[in-house]
């Protein structure tokens, strides 16, 4: 497995699934239950879509930003401050998020 990107642990856990890279609100409509979301830290509306996720990778923001706390409360593994995550992770690829260590790997 190859490490793709790393960040700061927010909510610990280990999960493998399909990456869903979010650039705008319409990308959120593609999110399926169990996907790992790769997204910027943004407004509270994203929380509604995080509900479906198995994990979240936030490209920016501190541990106390909206999506980090929402992910933590939802019990979803989460890392933040994963620089350029949306460029480094391909939409639809299978990844493993080890949020306890703050690392993301490409599966296969």
């Amino acid at each position, binding site marked *: 497995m190859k490490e793709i990107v790393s960040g700061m642990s*927010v*909510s*610990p*856990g280990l999960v493998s699934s399909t990456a869903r890279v979010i650039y705008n609100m319409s990308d959120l409509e593609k999110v399926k239950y169990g996907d790992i979301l790769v997204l910027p*830290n*943004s*407004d*509270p*509306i994203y*929380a*509604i879509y*995080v*509900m479906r996720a198995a994990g979240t990778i936030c490209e*920016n*923001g*501190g*541990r*106390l*930003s*909206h999506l980090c*706390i*929402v*992910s*933590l*409360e*939802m*019990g*979803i593994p989460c890392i933040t401050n994963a620089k350029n995550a949306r460029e480094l992770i391909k939409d639809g690829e299978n990844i493993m998020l080890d949020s*306890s260590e703050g690392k993301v790997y490409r599966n296969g």
Partner: protein
Amino acid sequence: MANEKKLLMYKQSLESAWGYNDYNDWPIKYNSIMHLFLNNFTQEFLHDFIELKSKGVTNQDIAKAFYNPSRIYRIIHTVIYGMKNLKYSALEQKEMVIELLDLTALMKFGSVFNENGKNIILNPDNLESTLKRTFLKADDREKSVKLHRLLGILWAYTEAIFFRAHDVTKEIHGLYNIDDNSLLIREYMNLMPNKLWNLVDIGCNKIKIFTKYTKEIELNVDSYNHLFHHSGSLIDGLLEYRIEIDDNESSLEDLIDIMPKLSENIISINQWAKQADWKEKTKKYAEIYWFRKSPLRDLLGMPADLSEEVIGNIELGQVDESRVKNLTDKQIKYLIYSFI
């Protein structure tokens, strides 16, 4: 605790809370617009506080009116910034910090600063008799998943309706040792602030959720009421839970029924934020801050509305472009250790 020690610990708590360099830019960067109402906010806060004292209202009464300690603790730095702007002396600023820390202390059983990672509001010695409540077994993992998803939505809702002043609407307290496990209590209040928003009626104003986790789950709550999770799975570590809606014992299904309305309100506020200009957002921020300090006005029997002067300042003012950018870690540290 000596006052100097309290001041130092207060500064350290700021470092811990602000050190994560949060990006407070939804719905607008607070730092770039606060100058348009901060001085008026502080003047009114101080006036009301002193007026109440002169009328013989005790700190206990004020603490009771605010209800939850975070609502005081998290307002301290705002008041001090305002005092600084208004050229109050360093001594007066320090005295106010101590006064407000002491006020916060009245609302808690444990330390104001949560040095042990716990926000202890209830007396742990009387916890069993204080609670005497029925807990439901989290015997089905799916229940735990649903409950935690709902907790996330509740958090998002509180941030949507009160922006960064969401201490007005929640307090997370614990961890309390119970049956050799850890009890965390999440209290949500002021969930229908009709003076601020025209919301879909969610049918309640208060929700309280008790979650009992195995002691292996490592959590802590800082003095800014932030929850941190270090190890273990919240979903798998949940043993029992209890839900109260407007003080009535309720089921998970009752809570699930409220969620679509919470989501609808989050979406509508989000749409408002996309369409509103910076003046409308600033006015809303000011209204939220006036709501935040409204217990003082309520005790005085005075209206807690924004003054014409504040509205005028916003109308004629400008965004402070120099404060739109996030601060660096070094700048945050300088700010903390230079401001009182």
